[in-house]
């Protein structure tokens, strides 16, 4: 039997949302060498203001359009990418969102089951339910949870029930942080044995053209939202910039704070030093990491914080909050990687952390050690090995009873 794997996910980078699901794409790329065929089913939530009549009309039309749909496109590692639009009105409960994704995937598959012996879903209910409802009876089922809204999914009665169904059926349930593992272990103690930690795979292969020599060019990559602390970052940058006019700040991303940040940049008089690029393709954001000196990531909460590891893969130190994920990903190499600061509403921690880092850079920062350690933990080969061990037995066949 071939090593065929199907990946079902609500998040995958697209033109509209180039960052969303970058970790799923990285996982597909990382595991490409250990599979013979990989197909990604991107059940893309298309959320809009819809009346019930519109919603029903759209659902019926989508079913009738299925026979005319163009075939899959291609993505990393030669994998096929099947785009499945999942139209839905706003603010649906999570379980219903998952059920709609399952229905849309069934339509896209023409009613046939997913043709793969191994099915790996990403994002609990939103990828897990469509996978569960459309896979073959004999398929092996795995899930990776990345969602920062896991607690809200479990708080819904239908969401909890659907989650339990997934946990019963899956052979292993991967989570990207201890926080998630603890949450799930508490909610489903009978399935604790299936919970496993996994990292989002990161590319460490591309070298930085020149090493960082000072910490002048700050970079932020992520959503421009309060949850990422980007408003405090701008204020803190303005304080540091007053003392050192050579500093610059590049903000990569889009979000609800975009127009407010634009206005605040002008008010603070730092328009010459701050650049808002808008959303960029992940490759361009990674290029920027190799051209900047310091990633500042003052997020309020992260389950993993992939951008922090990407920055170190790109050879730059980080100034990052202890917001859940980073203290785990950087465990043991905190000082080598840069500076960790407390989550705080204000500028003091960011400014003080930057000054501490400046005081000990470069003598007391070991980026080579941080990079090497993270490559062993989160590099493509490490993640590929972990998936391969879960999906296949030693003979390369889908295995059972692990």
């Amino acid at each position, binding site marked *: 039997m071939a090593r065929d794997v199907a990946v079902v996910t609500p998040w995958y980078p697209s033109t509209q949302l180039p960052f969303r699901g970058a970790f799923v794409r990285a996982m597909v790329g990382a595991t490409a060498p250990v599979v013979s065929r990989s197909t990604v089913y991107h059940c893309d939530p298309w959320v809009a203001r819809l009346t019930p009549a519109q919603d029903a009309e759209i659902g019926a039309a989508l079913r*009738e*359009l299925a026979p005319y749909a163009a*075939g899959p496109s291609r*993505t990393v590692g030669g994998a096929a990418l099947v785009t499945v639009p999942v139209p839905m009105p706003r603010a649906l409960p999570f379980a219903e969102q998952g059920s709609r994704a399952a229905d849309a995937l069934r339509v896209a598959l023409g009613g046939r089951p997913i043709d793969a012996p191994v099915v790996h879903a990403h994002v609990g209910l939103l990828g897990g339910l469509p996978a569960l409802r459309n896979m073959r009876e004999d398929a092996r089922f795995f899930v990776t949870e990345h969602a920062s809204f896991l607690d809200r999914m479990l708080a819904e009665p239908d969401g909890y029930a659907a989650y339990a169904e997934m946990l019963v059926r899956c052979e292993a349930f991967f989570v990207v942080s201890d926080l998630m593992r603890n949450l799930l272990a508490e909610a489903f103690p009978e399935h604790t044995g299936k919970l496993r930690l996994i990292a989002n795979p990161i590319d460490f292969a591309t070298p930085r053209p020149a090493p960082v020599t000072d910490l002048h060019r700050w970079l932020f990559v992520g959503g421009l939202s309060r949850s990422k602390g980007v408003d405090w970052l701008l204020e803190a940058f303005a304080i540091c910039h007053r003392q050192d006019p050579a500093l610059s700040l590049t903000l990569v991303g889009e979000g609800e704070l975009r127009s407010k940040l634009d206005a605040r940049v002008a008010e603070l008089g730092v328009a010459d030093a701050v650049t808002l690029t808008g959303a960029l393709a992940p490759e361009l954001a990674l290029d920027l990491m190799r051209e900047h000196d310091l990633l500042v990531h003052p997020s309020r909460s992260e389950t993993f914080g992939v951008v922090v590891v990407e920055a170190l893969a790109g050879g730059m130190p980080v100034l990052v909050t202890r917001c859940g994920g980073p203290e785990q990903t950087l465990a043991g190499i905190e000082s080598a990687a840069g500076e960790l600061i407390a989550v705080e509403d204000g500028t003091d921690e960011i400014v003080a952390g930057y000054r501490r880092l400046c005081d000990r850079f470069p003598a007391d920062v070991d980026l080579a050690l941080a990079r090497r350690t993270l490559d062993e933990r989160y590099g493509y080969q490490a993640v590929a090995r972990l998936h391969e061990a879960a999906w296949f037995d030693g003979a390369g066949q889908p295995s059972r009873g692990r």
Partner: protein
Amino acid sequence: MAPDNPAVVGEDGSMRVLFLALGANRRLAVTQESARLAEAGDRPVVLVDDRNTWAAETFAPGVTVLSLREQAGGHWPTAAEQLVLFRGPTFLLRRLGRRGGRLAGAYQRRIADRLHHRAFLPLYRRLWPDGADRPLDAFRRRQGRFDAILVTDPQSIPAARRLVGPAGRPDAPRVAFRIDQLLVPADPGDGMNHKDRA
């Protein structure tokens, strides 16, 4: 691995692709993907509901943008509604200067669009079963055949179904939800150049 679907091309090697963007809620995908096609020498046409909704967006040279509301199709109630509910009030509000522009936008989103979808469209469908679809039919008559339809938002899905025509039509355009579906990758996962393979 070989692609599962061949590139969709016209006789001169270029594609005539219709972007359906009637919901206007995935704008980045529409502007960037139509720009990619235009840069490749293809002929993208973007059909929007209301041109004003897209006023802040920039389309690349070579991209044709058309408005469904400007395709009245000889249906007088639709034309009258457009005048009384949309064009008249927004014209007057915009006379108030910069603040008027914001007011016109808010009026259209919160009042006119809601009335159009919740009151007028259901009414037309009851009184004139084919009336609500006349603008789209008029668009199809004027624009002719497309090689492919790219559906970009939920509100465009019923329009795509109508444009595809009756089931089993041999020359039906392909329907895609992502531009990559219509292009053959030159290098899997990276840049696209369908003409190299077509």
